[in-house]
């Protein structure tokens, strides 16, 4: 049972425009969410996170939005740059749990065209 879903396998945007990556989850116990970026032959790199007590978190060009009622989060990248081309993973966890295991989505491949 897939608890975290990224329904768009790929996304292509023009340099300078906004990239919006989406993620849905089913487990209402999740209260901490993270986005990771992955380049080929490398491990995932942490980008940004958000706790369920917030609905928005911003870090430079990256903003994550959380809609708890819809069990949906999104990552906005503005402006998009060619170096942002990578696979983006959404992950969820239970903040108060005694394990920090992350539940990942399948990933969305972002291509930013110059």
């Amino acid at each position: 049972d897939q608890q975290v879903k990224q329904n768009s396998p790929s996304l292509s945007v023009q340099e300078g425009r906004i990239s919006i990556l989406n993620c849905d989850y089913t487990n209402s116990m999740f209260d901490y969410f993270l986005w990771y970026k992955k380049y080929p032959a490398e491990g995932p790199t942490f980008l940004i996170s958000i706790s369920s007590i917030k609905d928005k978190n911003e870090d430079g060009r990256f903003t994550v939005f959380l809609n708890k009622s819809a069990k949906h989060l999104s990552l906005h990248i503005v402006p998009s740059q060619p170096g942002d081309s990578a696979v983006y993973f959404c992950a969820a966890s239970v903040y108060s749990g005694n394990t920090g295991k992350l539940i990942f989505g399948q990933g969305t491949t972002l291509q930013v065209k110059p």
Partner: protein
Amino acid sequence: EAGVTQFPSHSVIEKGQTVTLRCDPISGHDNLYWYRRVMGKEIKFLLHFVKESKQDESGMPNNRFLAERTGGTYSTLKVQPAELEDSGVYFCASSHWTGAYEQYFGPGTRLTVT
């Protein structure tokens, strides 16, 4: 500060053989996680160590997989005997705090079972 390192980067073995993967976490990180990504799908949690103790091994697929973390430093993941479906990329991650915090991933070990 050195990141998470994994060895080997790639391993090709025949079905029925044994393989041991190694992970060295970031120095001082008590929490060590193993994940696996199969066939370009989602990254799946395998288990979590806090120091040398197994905190959560709910993701281990079967008893052919054995993880150890002697002395609370590096960890090994042994697959014995390997099956075709064990092929994939095995990631190790570490974090300082226990719980839902960002985890730092290694580059992964690509395991191919033929």
